[in-house]
């Protein structure tokens, strides 16, 4: 009764990472490539991101989210990739058999030569923050509100407070203002912005929406619908400062307080995870700890630009195709990539120097603390500096990319760890 399918590469999730992986897998020679997507169309979260700012790095042009997605959706279909839409993966076995469901086919059993995880991420919720108060209607994550406004065509409220200066929150502040709503304020518990500076300028500053750093929501009020939130200033240890409470009347609280890679399927397979990123531990080819399983995009760690997700997807797709075709590189010598001074995490976690033979490779990192002056990004192999570059500033909200050129190969060679640090110049 189960319908059975078989592919060289199966990509789970049709967002930007999955689209790029599928296209790259076909280009690398995989014949039968399939994307499984739970929504009714490909494109993932980009379909509700109707603002611009997508594509400058990869396409050299500034596009709205749906246009950026469509560029790759067209390529996917031209490349002969199959898409199973409105379809949810229920289970994946270590032998790469997937079980999925949809309303057309019922339960599908899908055999895959290689699997690419590109499930993206989900938003941190009110519950995860354990915000005190009541539990009324009118508390939404920014992405849920974005879907309501941009896809469903409904306004989730009239008067908003936004907790968290994540990118989606700031973009929604502007979007809601344009739709006639009043956005009272954006509160950020950290002493610095958590999203991109350009979003602060274009979405908050240009619309006169106040941002309060080192502030959070102490309580939600209202039994049926939100009636107000209590804002409070916090000290350096994020503890509320007594006496600083302020009641802000509003009917909606939006949360833009972080994204979490969506790894339920990977976790159930026992794939090794990084507790800092919330994603799988990967090598420079985006291979996970389980052979034949690759990961691309926000499922690995949360990127700030979609362009980077596309590039990561291409890497994962190529690796998956090579694995499925029996052409995966055989090298076993690899370095552990370690987060050093002021670095919260680095991806990939493992690095095969042999990969430099294929061309330049990338490390991507996020810093712990912002430094608003010139800083040095330093690479050390077993404690010996092998490379450095200067950045004008570093901010936790903005990823730093390190391009590893092939000429580093010899300097990496005997080492077992590669440490990345971000330091002020002496």
């Amino acid at each position, binding site marked *: 009764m189960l319908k059975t399918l078989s592919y060289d590469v199966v990509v789970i999730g049709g967002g930007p990472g999955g689209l790029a992986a599928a296209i790259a897998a076909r280009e690398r020679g995989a014949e039968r490539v399939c994307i499984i997507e739970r929504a009714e169309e490909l494109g993932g979260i980009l379909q509700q991101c109707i603002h611009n700012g997508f594509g400058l790095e990869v396409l050299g042009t500034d596009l709205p989210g749906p246009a950026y997605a469509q560029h790759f959706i067209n390529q996917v279909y031209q490349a002969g990739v199959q898409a199973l839409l409105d379809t949810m993966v229920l289970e994946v076995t270590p032998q790469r058999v997937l079980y999925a*469901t949809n309303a057309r086919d019922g339960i599908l059993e899908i055999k895959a030569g290689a699997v690419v995880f590109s499930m993206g991420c989900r938003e941190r919720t009110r519950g995860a923050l354990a915000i005190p108060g009541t539990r009324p209607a009118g508390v939404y994550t920014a992405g849920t509100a974005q879907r*309501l406004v941009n*896809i469903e065509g*409904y*306004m989730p409220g*009239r008067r908003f407070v936004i907790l968290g200066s994540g990118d989606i929150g700031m973009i929604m502040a502007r979007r809601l203002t344009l*739709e*006639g709503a009043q956005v009272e304020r954006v509160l950020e518990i950290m002493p610095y912005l958590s999203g991109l500076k350009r979003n602060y300028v274009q979405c908050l500053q240009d619309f006169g929406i106040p941002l309060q750093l080192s502030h959070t929501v102490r309580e939600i009020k209202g039994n*049926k*619908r939100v009636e107000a939130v209590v804002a409070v200033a916090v000290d350096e240890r994020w503890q509320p400062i007594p006496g600083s409470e302020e009641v802000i009347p509003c009917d909606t609280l939006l949360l833009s307080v972080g994204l979490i890679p969506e790894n339920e399927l990977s976790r159930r397979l026992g794939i090794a995870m990084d507790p800092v990123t919330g994603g799988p531990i990967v090598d420079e080819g985006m291979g996970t700890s389980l052979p034949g399983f690759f990961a691309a995009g926000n499922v690995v760690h949360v990127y700030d630009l979609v362009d980077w997700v596309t590039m990561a997807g291409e890497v994962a797709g190529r690796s998956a195709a090579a694995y499925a075709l029996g052409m995966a590189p055989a090298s076993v010598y690899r370095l552990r990539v370690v987060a050093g001074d002021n670095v919260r995490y680095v991806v990939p976690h493992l690095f095969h120097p042999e990969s430099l033979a294929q061309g330049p490779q990338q490390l991507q990192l996020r810093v712990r603390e912002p430094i608003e002056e010139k800083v040095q990004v330093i690479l050390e192999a077993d404690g010996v500096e092998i490379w450095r570059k200067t950045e004008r500033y570093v901010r936790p909200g903005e990823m730093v990319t390190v391009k590893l050129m092939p000429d580093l190969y010899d300097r990496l060679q005997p080492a077992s760890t590669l440490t990345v640090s971000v330091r002020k110049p002496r």
Partner: protein
Amino acid sequence: MDDPYDVIIIGGGVVGCFIARALSRYKGRVLLLEREADVCSGTSKANTAIVHAGYDAKPGTLKASLNVAGNRMYDQVCAELDVPFQRCGTYVVALTEEDLHTLDDLYHRGIQNGVSGMRIISGEEMRRVEPLVNPDVRGALYAATGGIVDPFLLTIAAAENAVLNGVHLRLETEVTDLIRQNGRIVGVSTNRGQFLGRFVINAAGLYADQLMAQAGLHGFTITPRKGEYYVFDREKSRVRTVLFPCPTAISKGILVTPTTHGNTLIGPNAVDIRDKEDVTVTPEGLEEVFAGAQRLVPTLERRDVIAVFAGLRASGSTGDFLIEAPAQAPGLINVAGIESPGLTAAPAIAEFVLDLLRECGLELLEKADYNPIRRSPPRFSELSPREKAALIAKDARYGRIVCRCETVTEGEIVAAIHAPVPARTYDALKRRTRLGAGRCQGGFDTPRVIHILARELGLPPTAITKKGPGSEFVVRETKEWNDSGKV
């Protein structure tokens, strides 16, 4: 006005719904009134979901006898109603020398109350049973008859079974007054008109004392006693066993328990308050609960929390349940002060109330067509791949996942919307299907569920609510401006 009823029940909590179900076995017209948009919307929806063994209550009290009697009914009731119930046993954990004496006291009280299957075990045995328990554990009282239940599904299933057996249910119907005639209570006034009945059962939970006062009965009061809780991600911070601390004078203490769905639940604290609507979670309360739970399971982690909530116990001024047919207000039956172990006792309370009604002269004649069996609609996530395929072949909507964390399908949602006790709000759907109860807390499904509710109920999305009128999700369409340019 409708024809007079034989019995009107005020309150669709677990007690009111079980009384309705018990009455539905007999001939006669029964009306169940609930002021909220769904049954199970007050105390019954926000508690610890434990089926207590019965060693806590003072011997000789109604709490003691109805706890033990109710506990014994659970296997049959949950089998008939198709409700998740696990008689997994419970443990009271002793961390100090003094606690060990408390275990002895509880054991002897349990014997007096008629509790079977109790045993005092060593700290070593406790650690073996629950490796996450505080390593300092010195012993525990094991009660084999204790268990866990889904209180939402239990209450809803009892209400559905009652409705299928002929009980009338009116939601969003709030009793504003009792109707008195010649000294007798003969009905109720509500926001939706008057209803007459030979008997009126006051199962109004936190508000039972106010109804009593309206009937001229003073002296008994109900204090809301708030309890706050955390729910943990199913995949993490996961305990296997129900762990109580040693109890205090006013509460069984902050416990750590698995739910029937595999989440860990911790709580409650106990804070007496005034406002019967105040289910505010407080920073102090959350601190207290977390610290209390960590005494039992030190490895609990805040980052694994997916939700916090508070519930109110209807704590009566006598310290015991009050279940009576007061002489001063004939026609009225009070079922008041039903705090813990009220969930456990509910099926036995219903039988007790039936006895009271018989004593008051209500003749209860068995119906030939009474059916105690109520089957749950299919739960997609619990089926085998072949069963899933068969279900989708019958109804394609079971192939479409709407809530990804809990794997809830459109088919299950539509079935719940059109069930005998219809789910007409988001929270009502959540209690029945678990949609939105997972780690993303509805972030993914909410827009889709609004759409499905609107379609199935024939309402605009602006009329769809979280939990009844006043809790609408969306306020207007985009691009909707009035003449002044303001919205």
